[in-house]
């Protein structure tokens, strides 16, 4: 077998199998590094809050940041990871709710009125109607002004 091929196959598979202990150690290192970074950011944020907004709230944020960092180093799998998972789920819920509100506003304030306006002005890029009098629905690529066709071939453009 050519050496390229053998090397290539080894990029997708380790014949000796997964070194579970090395993988576990790597995962722990990732958890701790991530937690340390988040802890540092949390402390900076706590300091800003303490100095400029609310001393009590600043202390609370600082305590949470320190607690999570300590947990990441002392009980990374048993305690920190489930807490982090819970926080991630909470942030997903918050993010989804915010997205919903923003996108609903965008849809109602932009797409609905303009969509209705366009269709009232007989502009609809979706050609939905049947045309019994036509012998063909094929669009001639060279002649048509439809958005997908008649475009100059410019391979470097994304449109």
């Amino acid at each position, binding site marked *: 077998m050519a050496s390229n091929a053998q090397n290539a196959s080894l990029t997708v598979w380790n014949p000796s199998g997964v070194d579970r202990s090395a993988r576990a150690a790597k995962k722990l290192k990732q958890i701790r590094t991530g937690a340390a970074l988040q802890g540092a950011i949390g402390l900076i944020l706590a300091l800003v809050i303490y100095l400029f907004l609310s001393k009590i709230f600043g202390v609370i944020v600082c305590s949470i940041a320190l607690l999570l960092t300590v947990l990441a180093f002392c009980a990374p799998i048993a305690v920190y990871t489930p807490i982090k998972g819970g926080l991630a789920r909470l942030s997903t819920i918050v993010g989804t709710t915010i997205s919903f509100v923003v996108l609903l506003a965008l*849809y109602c304030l932009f797409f609905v009125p303009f969509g209705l306006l366009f269709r009232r002005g007989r502009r609809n890029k979706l050609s939905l109607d049947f045309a019994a009098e036509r012998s063909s629905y094929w669009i001639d690529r060279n002649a048509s002004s439809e958005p997908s066709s008649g475009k100059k071939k410019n391979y470097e453009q994304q449109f």
Partner: protein
Amino acid sequence: MKILGISAFYHDSAACVLDQGRIVAAAQEERFTRIKHDHNFPLHAVRYCLAEAGVDADGLDAVAFYDKPLLKFHRILETYFGMAPSGFRSFFQALPVWMKKKIWIPVEIEKALKAAGVEPPEKLYFPEHHESHAASAFYPSPYQNAAVLTVDGVGEWATSTISNGEGGRLEILKELGFPHSLGLLYSAFTYFTGFRVNSGEYKLMGLAPYGKPVYRDKILDEMIDLKEDGSFRMKMKYFGYLDTLRMTSSPFDEFFGGPPRKAETPLTRREMDIARSIQEVTEIIVLRMARHARTITGHKHLCMAGGVALNCVANGKILREGIFDDIWIQPASGDAGGALGAAMAVWHNALGNRREADDKNDAMSGAYLGPEFADDDIAVYLETHGYPHEKLSDEEWAPRLAQLIADEKVIGLHQGRMEFGPRALGGRSIVGDARSPKMQSVMNLKIKYRESFRPFAPTCLEERISDFFAIDRPSPYMLLVAPVNEERQIALRGDEEDLDITEWVNRPRSDVPAITHVDHSARIQSVGKKYNPRYHALIKAFEDLTGYGIVINTSFNVRGEPIVCTPEEAYQCFMRTEMDFLVLGSYLLDKKTQPAWSEDGDWRDKIALD
């Protein structure tokens, strides 16, 4: 010059590398991540393809992405303008993904290449989606000149195209525009009959022979307006994909007298008749499109790609109609093949490179374009884990396996390079005796764990194809369906429709019952010596033993998981199922001697049904 082609973010992400226009490697991301139809950016496939091509840190000259993302985004937005005020649920689901990922393709490409240790090249190219499909069909084909037909769900705006291919140039002549799409029409019926969209379409095709076309005319009269040239429009009141998260709407339910079938519930006569009806409608449309392609291009050969080109029953009809002297279908006709086509479109269309074809040989290397694992590495794996094995010499490999197949053993075959595309072609296959009447139900229920109505496909020796099937040319990629020769058929008794589907399936239909579908058809792979000599030798040895140069070939996976890639995945699948033997390269493993298999939890819970 080395070009990397990429498809991503819809379904079946993949990567491909061309070196001076020659296909060096191609692979689907799902095979590495073990997520079926993985649509995420194909990091692993990119890394593999670059390694296979020996691309070093600054060795990549260009990257081609398989569609124009901003043009596609334009279509998405125009759809919402066209449907508002309805459509918010779809809008809410789609827009965040677009804003976060899909409009930032150059950034994703740069990240992936840096992760693979390769400097991103200056040039990024974005051929259109259907141009990528057309290029994947034409450029690797054997033909110097050909008509090219691409039919799928939708690209940017086009859903079907007819192109003219001449030498090194490919030009799209005609297109059909969204939302009128044969791919989406077929997917709507896939959804309605309880199969998974973008995954279960071939199950709908396999179900069709069990039914009657009772709805065909009604569909043609009321659901679509079909013109003589194969172009059509759909009555969108029946379809929900423009503005809802369903493929079909309430009027569709009323049309067929009830709601969609729920997944995993028993199939009824209604679903079988629907399957048959939509299959015939699809064939009518594709045949008309093919005739129109012949008319406007004048070429005597046809190339096809796009998801609908995987409908091999329709492909077989095109061939038998004699509209063209011959046809060639891209083995990776779905979006995975777009990666290959994008790279090809750039090499030829954008960069103007020539192409010479001899009208006989294609450039796909049998579709064996993925990783291959050396015997030495396999030995390390088996020794490390203590799995009992036996090394077969080159001389004993084929005869030994042939004898096992003749003894009605089921063998998992993992050898050579992995296939590119949805079909297993002897590199990652489960093989068995096609003569055995019980093999279809054994394999469906005990090995694939899938629906029992589904037929198996054969691989036969290329030189024997006409001995078994009514077809007079090779079929190397399992993309053509043809009848089993009449002299081999066992006539239907006429009472099949009164039977339970399981009873019907178990009735022998020919002297190779395991691969003969209920209508006496088969989806054929023929293998020659050139691209898979070992597989050819195996079937030849089986013929020497039994007089039959044909075996069952099904993909090496259980239902819901991607086809296996590595020897480790092959071993895992082997041990999870009731296969008798496993072949890894030159090594043979007997299930009876293997240590007991254990894993955390039930593996069936880890794999979502498709």
